[in-house]
């Protein structure tokens, strides 16, 4: 008699097991339909984790199907559905990359949550036969002055470093964003990149009935029991102890051995398929690999090595113990596999065989305790239809957490001192240097790091070739809160633009969609609009979406997070010698602005600084212009016309110029035509704009090239001196004298060293960390 039946007989007792496991009555009916009978308790537990949002994508699957996934013509070797996307880069090599969230575990236990997040995404990479070569961490927290936030930032950063540093994969980039909406629900999204020989590409499949199923890596304990279903899918509240399953603890040393052993197994052709164990543990790894190959598996539970005595069958089946892998191996190669594992000191056990019946069958002490069609757990899992409805009021809302009364009046358009605004922006927690964070990461191990964290996209040379990979992550959540389509499209535009600024060609996009409770029509609308924006932007830019991750239910009792479409991009530079950086390179170089500002301050850092969002909405995005701007940048770099390139993003044109000046250690004397208002032209964040510097002899050719791409171009001035001087001219610079005072905006005139000082110290001050130790300049 199953628990389900017992509950039905005594309705007054505790809620039925399926509901306690997070399975709705509707879902239970769907499970019955697939099995043709009632599930037993163990099977129910397996369904509960496999049909969780986290594993099944039951809310997002139909949306994700609309994304462009590319083809062999785009070089795509493996796309969504595999552990990571893989794209060919020539020379027989390919790059694997993927981004994933570990938001809820990090909220509970920041160090271990972040550490195991890194461990999990790395396994997705080396499972495919790729050696992990880089990590990027995209982090979002609440108010930096809050004690709990500081605790989380400290723990998460230590966790990312604690794991990545130990396994020897450099952390080369990421993001750190503060917004009150993340107060109860921080975001920890981690992207990993790997490099593989294309011939070694390995898929997460279990082909060939009769093949052995081998589990290797750490022993199985009670880690994260219920983690997948409860931690990752139910709304998180701090005070509900029942939703605090045992925390998973990461062991980066074990992972390092797992990387070496797995790559050796693949290199020697010893495995037919390989899958890491993540959420839902053995249940997920067995059913997904079998389902992909159209096979089944017979698993002997007693063969699974355990860390703890007395574990129940369901615990072994859904445990999320870290650092484990599942290999499908031909019987005659079992001994070799065992030898490799033994040499790396890794426990290894044959736990079953591949079968032809399509079922996951589990025996314990000789009795069959589970028989479920693999498809029912994975490809044929339930799909939910949710209602999507835009919010009733779609007028641009005040920035969350900001006082909303008279928001537009708070914007210091009138009589503002642009120099003071620029300084405030550079020292703000949003834009200040992230050095105190990324210095806790090893960013140079593996000797590939040409450009590490700190100045735009990361650049990694590919040994044995002239090539380099360029990577970045980006998400525009504030605009996404106002217009989720635009937020997602802007995120793609900015991430790809960051890559194009180096002269590299973006290869593909991975994404992590961090949204709220999909049963709320507004949250589901945000998600569907974001997926539409992601797809539209990628189609416009001609890029495949090769994979990603969806994290829903990012809500705390205080409310939902800003919808956050995290975008990861990898690009290819054919010749690393042609790399273009963002720093002003030489005195007397001409400074040009390609693209033009459009009005709209909502969602900008300037609006945040001013304490409210403008009433005018966010600036628009013209995807075709974005494509042309990036194509121009690559062409200009390829022809060797550029001395530096930098896109205009957070903090607007003034911040972009200040960064180029600080990073180059040299000033500039510039004049900016104000077409709209000083705030829009200096600090607005309208997209598709880049600052290009060039030797004077190349300036004319650059202007011509820009016009050939149909892009507006304007000469701003020249590099030189040790001050950043920006004068404003044009109609908008004066305005109505009676309203704005005689001088609308004084020129900016600040020593570059002062800008740098403000920028370097802003974050440590905001977090109350000890003064950041400034590293020697250069690099």
């Amino acid at each position, binding site marked *: 008699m199953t628990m389900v039946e017992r509950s039905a007989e005594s309705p007054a007792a505790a809620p039925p097991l399926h509901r306690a496991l997070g399975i709705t009555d509707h879902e239970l009916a769907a499970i019955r339909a697939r099995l043709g009978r009632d599930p037993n308790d163990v099977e129910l537990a397996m369904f509960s984790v496999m049909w969780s949002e986290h594993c099944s994508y039951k809310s997002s699957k139909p949306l994700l199907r609309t994304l462009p996934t590319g083809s062999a013509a785009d070089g795509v070797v493996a796309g969504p559905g595999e552990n990571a996307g893989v794209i060919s880069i020539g020379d027989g090599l390919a790059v694997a990359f993927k981004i994933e969230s570990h938001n809820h575990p990090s909220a509970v*236990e920041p160090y271990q949550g972040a550490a195991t997040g890194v461990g999990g995404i790395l396994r997705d990479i080396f499972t495919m036969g790729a050696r992990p070569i880089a990590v990027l961490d995209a982090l979002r927290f609440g108010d930096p002055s809050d004690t709990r936030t500081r605790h989380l930032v400290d723990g998460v950063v230590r966790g990312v470093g604690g794991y990545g540093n130990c396994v020897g994969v450099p952390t080369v980039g990421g993001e750190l964003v503060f917004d009150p909406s993340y107060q109860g629900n921080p975001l920890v999204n981690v992207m990993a990149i790997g490099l593989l020989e294309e011939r070694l590409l390995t898929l997460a499949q279990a082909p060939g009935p009769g093949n052995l199923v081998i589990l290797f890596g750490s022993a199985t304990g009670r880690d994260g029991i219920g983690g997948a279903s409860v931690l990752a899918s139910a709304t998180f509240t701090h005070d509900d102890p029942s939703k605090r399953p*045992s*925390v998973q*603890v990461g062991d980066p*040393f074990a992972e390092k051995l797992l990387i070496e052993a797995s790559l050796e197994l693949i290199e020697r052709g010893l495995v037919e398929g390989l899958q890491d164990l993540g959420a839902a543990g053995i249940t997920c790894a067995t059913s997904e690999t079998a389902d992909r190959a159209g096979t089944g598996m017979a698993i002997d539970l007693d063969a699974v090595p355990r860390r703890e005595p007395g574990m129940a069958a369901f615990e072994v089946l859904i445990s999320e113990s*870290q650092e484990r892998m599942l290999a499908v191996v031909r019987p005659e190669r079992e001994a070799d596999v065992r030898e490799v594992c033994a040499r790396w*000191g890794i426990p290894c056990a044959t736990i079953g065989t591949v079968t032809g019946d399509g079922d996951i069958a589990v025996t314990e002490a000789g009795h069959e305790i589970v028989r479920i069609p693999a498809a029912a757990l994975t490809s044929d899992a339930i799909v939910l239809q949710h209602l999507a409805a835009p919010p009733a009021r779609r007028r641009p809302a005040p920035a969350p957490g900001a006082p909303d009364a008279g928001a537009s009046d708070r914007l210091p358009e009138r009589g503002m001192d642009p120099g003071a605004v620029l300084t405030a922006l550079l020292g703000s927690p949003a834009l200040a240097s992230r050095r105190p964070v990324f210095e806790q990461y090893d960013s140079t191990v593996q000797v590939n790091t040409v450009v590490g964290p700190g100045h735009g996209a990361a650049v990694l040379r590919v040994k044995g070739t002239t090539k380099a990979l360029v990577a970045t992550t980006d998400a525009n959540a504030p605009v996404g809160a106002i217009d989720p389509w635009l937020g997602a499209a802007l995120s793609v535009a900015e991430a790809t633009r960051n890559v194009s600024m180096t002269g590299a060609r973006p290869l593909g996009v991975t994404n992590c969609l961090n949204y709220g409770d999909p049963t709320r029509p507004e949250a589901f609308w945000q998600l569907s609009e974001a997926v539409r924006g992601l797809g539209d932007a990628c189609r416009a830019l001609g890029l495949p979406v090769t994979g990603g991750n969806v994290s829903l239910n990012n809500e705390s009792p205080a409310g939902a997070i800003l919808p956050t479409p995290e975008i990861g991009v990898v690009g290819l530079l054919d010749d690393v010698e042609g790399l273009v950086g963002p720093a002003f390179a030489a005195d007397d170089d001409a400074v040009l602005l390609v693209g033009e500002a459009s009005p709209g301050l909502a969602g900008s850092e300037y609006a945040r600084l001013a304490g409210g969002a403008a009433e005018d909405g966010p600036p628009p995005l013209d995807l075709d212009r974005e494509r042309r701007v990036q194509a121009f940048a690559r062409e200009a770099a390829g022809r060797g016309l550029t001395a530096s390139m930098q896109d205009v993003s957070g903090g607007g044109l003034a911040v972009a110029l200040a960064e180029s000046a600080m990073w180059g250690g040299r000033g500039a004397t510039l004049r900016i035509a104000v077409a709209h208002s000083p705030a829009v032209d200096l600090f607005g964040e309208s997209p598709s704009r880049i600052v290009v510097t060039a030797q004077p002899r190349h300036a004319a050719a650059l202007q011509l090239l820009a016009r050939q791409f149909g892009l507006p171009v304007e000469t701003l001035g020249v590099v030189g001196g040790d001050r950043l001087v920006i004068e404003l001219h044009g109609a908008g610079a004066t305005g109505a004298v009676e309203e704005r005072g005689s001088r609308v905006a004084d020129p900016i005139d600040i020593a570059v060293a002062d800008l740098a000082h403000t920028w370097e110290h802003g974050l440590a001050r905001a977090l109350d960390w000890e003064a950041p130790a400034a590293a020697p300049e250069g690099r």
Partner: protein
Amino acid sequence: MSIEYRFAVNVLPKPGILDPQGRAVEGSLAHLAIEGVTAVRVGRRVELTVAADDEGAARTVVEQLARELLSNPLIEAFGLELLGATSSTTSATGAGR
């Protein structure tokens, strides 16, 4: 006049929680030619002096410290050990070692 109590706080991974350090130590025993050692758990020990009117008050302070700062209640458990007490106000550093 308050008394100075020297306490030790022992923090260890909770039973069932993975202890990678303990595992690494176990794995290295063979190299040391040591046999018969099992169940190694690696934790922290913090020794400190607290000035208070009586042992109960001192214990309350140490317990708060252990709970909020020295241990992570999700994955670690702690125990207190009283190492000694001196009624003077001179330092009790090192007592109990």
